[in-house]
């Protein structure tokens, strides 16, 4: 591990689904870096490839049908794509922490909270059982579990969704990973509990300087948590920008559409939401040119035959759109 390497650097990642209906490029050449202490949000609608990107990074793809067919995922400078599964067992939970949408199904229903956290600690650290139990209690306190001492003996079904998500977070950060991947971590939670969990994640990240990838479909959550945003559509990155640039001056027509389609309380009220006509195309029936062309208000002839590459119209900004290049 070199000292100067970024915690996470993804280069031209390609993940393909091999199905009876043909090969589908679920992640089609994704490149992305995340610095220590930085939160990069991965945004898009269902089927855009954001969750499969996360599973690819963690090497948790369901194979078959999904397989990484190209590219690199460099974790602290080391490409983990070619590593065998045994090596990944030592990396997941230690160097990369993960949090998923449905906290209850990410926990073992027949083990106590303490047992599950202790297992993580004993797998990845030198701690003995006694020390691990003490640490498990500390971790539960750290993630703000109400009545932590008593919850150690609880089973997941005895906890609320918010409390389960705190347990998952405790397990994810137990070994101080350098990278944390959170896939829709608050989508299943009520809004007041969501605010608690987002505040907790931000605090833990700032304290530990973790690099975080935050996957969400909710632009409100993006605005609240992200430093930088990557917008995905049909398996490809279509725009990347700092969170302020993206909301202030979105370049890709899809980003413009997503922001216009999201009501913003407190902002100038639009009479009508700007909707995007049509829907996300299925991956096995992508148009030949730009995948967004059939729904795009700025579509040109060229868009129907050529796929636009990412270009950098300004420092720190990337966009894959022929129309946006011109403006």
């Amino acid at each position, binding site marked *: 591990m070199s000292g100067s390497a970024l915690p996470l650097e993804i280069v031209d990642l390609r993940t393909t689904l091999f199905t009876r209906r043909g090969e589908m490029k679920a992640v089609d050449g994704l490149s992305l870096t995340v610095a220590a202490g930085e939160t990069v949000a991965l945004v898009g609608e269902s089927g855009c490839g954001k969750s499969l990107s996360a599973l690819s990074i963690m090497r948790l793809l369901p194979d078959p049908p999904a397989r990484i067919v190209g590219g690199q995922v460099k974790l602290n400078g080391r490409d983990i794509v070619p590593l065998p599964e045994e090596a990944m067992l030592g990396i997941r939970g230690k160097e990369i922490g993960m949090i998923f949408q449905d906290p209850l199904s990410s926990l073992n229903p027949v083990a106590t909270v303490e047992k599950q956290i202790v297992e993580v600690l004993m797998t990845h650290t030198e701690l003995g059982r006694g020390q691990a139990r003490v640490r498990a209690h500390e971790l539960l306190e750290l993630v703000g579990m109400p009545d932590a001492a008593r919850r150690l003996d609880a089973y997941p079904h005895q906890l609320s969704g918010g409390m389960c998500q705190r347990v998952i977070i405790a397990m994810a950060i137990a070994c101080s990973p350098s990278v944390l991947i959170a896939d829709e971590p608050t989508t299943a939670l*009520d809004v007041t509990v969501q*605010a608690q969990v987002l505040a907790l994640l931000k605090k833990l990240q700032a304290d530990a300087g973790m690099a975080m990838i935050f996957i969400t479909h909710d632009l409100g959550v993006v*605005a609240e948590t992200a430093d930088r945003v990557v917008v995905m559509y049909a398996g490809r990155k279509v725009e990347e920008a700092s969170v302020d640039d993206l909301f202030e001056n979105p370049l890709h027509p899809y980003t413009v559409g997503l922001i216009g389609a999201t*009501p*913003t309380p407190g902002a100038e009220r639009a009479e009508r939401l700007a*909707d995007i006509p049509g829907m996300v195309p299925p991956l096995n029936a992508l148009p030949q040119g730009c995948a967004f062309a059939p729904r795009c208000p700025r579509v040109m002839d060229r868009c129907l035959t050529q796929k636009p590459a990412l270009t950098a119209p300004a420092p720190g900004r990337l966009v894959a759109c022929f129309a946006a290049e011109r403006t």
Partner: protein
Amino acid sequence: MSLLSLRDVRVQFNTAGGVVRAVNGVSLDLAVGETLGLVGESGCGKSTLGKAIMKLVPVAGGEILVEGVDIAPLNREQLTNMRRKVQMIFQDPYGSLNPRSTVGRSVAQPLVLAGWKADATAERVETLLRWVGLPSDAKQRYPHEFSGGQRQRIGIARALALSPKLIICDEPVSALDVSVRAQVINLLEDLKSQFGVSYLFISHDLSVVEHIADRVAVMYLGMLFEVGGRDQIWREPRHPYTRALLAAAPIANPKLARARQRTVLQGELPSPLNPPPGCPFNSRCPMAQDRCRVEKPALRAVGNGVQAACHFV
């Protein structure tokens, strides 16, 4: 006369763990042409209240009046008449459509039940599908051939079939992607301006409610905490729970999100089996006093057309 009047409505469920008072004395009025947003977190009773109005769950007490007529004593035939005036659409449009019926049959069902003739029904189905933006050949196809947004359009077409005055929308866009969600919201607003239909719009998504509602009712553990005009509620929320809820809702604008003061509400919703005595919010309320632990606050006018249920507002 209000289109819909609720007077001290109560719904309770007997469970193995005891009695759950899912709706615990709700009084509310909805005017003709109005969109009333009903917001709250899971378990607050908002969906149960919607179902109670449709008589889909037994009502334990209080009155539900549709155009001034109490629906409790209605016989089957009278109830069918009432349901022409009040229709409902659901969160999961797939779960509310018969998978083995063509879309045409599903949309025609209310018309058939109302005794429409075959050719009038067919014509009406065509019109309804056009109104909700579905192609005419949709009627020969089955629900699984449609996307989530299109299925919600089918549900809306069916709800519109008998020209209802009120549609109860229970989380109608919660399962939809952002761009499709906006399409359905715009459709609901278009239909409202075209036909003057009113909505009771039940949602946990505050930004959607802020966009669509004229008035808003905030619910917590079976009780209404605050009712008022949309702008009044958003500009000057009175109840501490409303304030916390609005502060917790993410805002899709990084500058506004950073600028606002954020007090994160502690704790989680108490179990509806065992709500705290007094005000059900007292276990999480930053303003709670001794009085709140013994005396349940009543919903009362607090000025500007807003009602709030808090001893200290």
